[in-house]
């Protein structure tokens, strides 16, 4: 729930509702092919401002839906407003959904409103429309080679689920195949499928960064400033998680730079600068991580002012403030609610921004820092986010009869018991459940084995393991649907099978796990 003063929240509701009405009227005009270029700019600006305001005021659901509608709008613009009618229907429905969320009075239950379900339908409509557009383009142009950048990122959810399930099955087949040509073929097929899965889920950065740049230029105009935002990112792609983190980081950094760093033309003239400011956004693939730099030629960071604000706000004692190094002063910028601005504008100055950037990046294992700054000359922020995909904490182990490393989500608590221990839990034959033939099954319990009990709430499973059980962060290489029994993850450079114990049928014995 928003924690801002009631008056501010009420004002947000009122202004935003009017904004949604304007967006709907603008969209209607676009559908009727009236005043296209100016209307596009107005609708874009209104939708983006609505989203930004929702973020600042804590209306997370409005923020989220507005973000999705921005994507739909960009698709519509990119298609030249040539799309199935379902896109028009979903845009209008989305705007009405926004109104409903905005008008839900404080204290009134929003039970019965299924935003998650709505977003899912919205994304599917957009995905279907993109596939239609892609097919149309493919029919109109000559065939492209596989290496010519043909992308597969517009599969429906169900197709994606089938693809990841098939890739996982190939991995499992490879795991139990005898050495020889067949295993080699399975290895090659698995690598190809792994690459396709990564491609399917990859997000192109260019449209996202350009959209932020356009919004920043629009904000500058509204503030009476001239700002030229340049974006350089080539054809870089990122995992959805990394792309989202970069997106949020760039939104805040550009807003801050435009609102606070770049001076008005008059101020710049006094400082002997060109009337128009510049902000250069550069994204670079650094291997293990993606780097984004945002460099402006504005006022730069005033360390004396930082020290003074720290003292005024009581962020540090006067003695501490006096002793702060420049690096320590820069760190203050990333602390919650620390802002050097004396003016709270529609966009920034509340001290919300850089701490949000740091939070969203740290959640993804990334970081943000000030790369360089000089009073009067500008500032460069450097953002880094890991290139790897989504991570999940897992317990890893091996079971007798297979060299495959297995993993179970750390949502399950793991307990090891001696081999042959009597435990009141049904034993699960993991290899059998995964259809992997054991290379040396049967016989008496191996003294080197132990029983691993996995417990999550009321659910418990037991399996025999022949290794230590250790906790690791695993990268999800091939995320399958929740109803699939397994998926492939990478742990410390080794591919492993992440099992879903609840979907593996126990083999029976309730008393003795062997």
């Amino acid at each position: 729930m928003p924690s801002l003063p009631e008056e501010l929240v009420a004002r947000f509701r009122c202004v935003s509702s009017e904004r949604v009405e304007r967006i709907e009227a603008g969209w209607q005009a676009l559908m009727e092919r009236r005043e296209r270029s100016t209307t596009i700019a107005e609708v874009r600006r209104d939708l983006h401002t609505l989203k930004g305001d929702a973020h600042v005021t804590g209306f997370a659901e409005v923020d989220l839906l507005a973000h999705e509608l921005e994507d739909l709008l960009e698709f519509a613009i990119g298609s030249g407003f040539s799309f199935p009618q379902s896109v028009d229907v979903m845009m209008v429905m989305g705007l009405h959904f926004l109104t409903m969320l905005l008008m839900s009075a404080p204290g009134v239950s929003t039970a019965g409103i299924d935003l998650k379900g709505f977003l899912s339908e919205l994304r599917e409509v957009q995905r279907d429309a993109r596939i239609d557009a892609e097919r149309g383009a493919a029919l109109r142009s000559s065939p492209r080679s596989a290496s010519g950048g043909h992308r597969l990122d517009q599969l429906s959810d169900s197709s994606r689920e089938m693809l990841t399930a098939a890739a996982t099955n190939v991995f499992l087949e490879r795991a139990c195949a005898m050495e020889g040509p067949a295993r080699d073929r399975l290895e090659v097929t698995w690598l190809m499928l792994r690459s396709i899965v990564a491609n399917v889920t990859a997000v192109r950065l260019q449209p996202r960064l350009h959209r932020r740049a356009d919004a920043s230029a629009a904000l500058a105009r509204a503030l009476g400033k001239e700002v030229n935002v340049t974006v350089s990112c080539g054809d870089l792609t990122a995992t959805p998680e990394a792309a989202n983190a970069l997106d949020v980081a760039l939104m805040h950094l550009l807003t801050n730079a435009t609102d606070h760093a770049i001076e008005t033309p008059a101020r710049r003239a006094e400082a002997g600068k060109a009337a128009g400011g510049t902000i250069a956004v550069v994204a670079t693939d650094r291997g293990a991580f993606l780097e984004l730099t945002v460099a402006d030629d504005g006022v730069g960071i005033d360390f004396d002012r930082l020290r003074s604000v720290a003292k005024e706000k009581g962020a540090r004692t006067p003695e501490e403030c006096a002793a702060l190094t420049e690096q320590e002063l820069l760190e203050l910028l990333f602390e919650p609610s620390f802002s050097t601005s004396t003016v709270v504008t529609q966009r920034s100055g509340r001290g919300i921004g850089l701490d949000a950037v740091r939070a969203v990046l740290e959640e993804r294992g990334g970081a943000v820092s000030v790369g360089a700054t000089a009073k009067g000359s500008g500032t460069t922020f450097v953002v880094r986010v890991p290139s790897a995909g989504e991570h999940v904490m897992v317990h890893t182990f091996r079971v007798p009869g297979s060299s495959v490393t297995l993993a179970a989500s750390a949502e399950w608590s793991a307990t090891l018991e001696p081999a042959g221990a009597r435990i009141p839990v049904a034993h699960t034959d993991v290899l059998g459940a995964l259809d992997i033939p054991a290379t040396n099954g049967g016989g008496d319990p191996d003294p080197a084995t132990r029983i691993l009990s996995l417990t999550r709430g009321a659910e418990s499973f037991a399996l025999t393991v022949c290794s230590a059980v250790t906790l690791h962060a695993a990268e999800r290489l091939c995320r399958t649907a929740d109803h699939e029994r397994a998926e492939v993850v990478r742990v410390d450079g080794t591919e492993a099978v992440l099992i879903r114990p609840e979907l593996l049928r126990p083999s029976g014995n309730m008393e003795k796990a062997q």
Partner: protein
Amino acid sequence: MTTMSLSGTADALALAALESLLSQLHDHVLAAHHKTVLLDFTQLGFINSSCFAKLIAWVHRVRLLPEASAYTIRIRTSEKQTWQRRSLHALKCFAVDVVTIET
């Protein structure tokens, strides 16, 4: 239960009629103290965005009814009408306690 069947295409030409129809339907259901409305869309070729906006407004109105006069809306659909799957499921998301989709 009140049943209403729509056929043809709900486009700009049908907008005013649909709005009036939904208003009359709402009043009728309340007056009759019915607890369910069955909307048969199996013969409906398409609903454009403006007409959908009217349906949304009606669903929202029903959602806000006091419990004593509340009623639910069952929408009967046809798999042959491919447009219905996503848009009507999206409509249901406005009030999952009020709207159900039947195939």
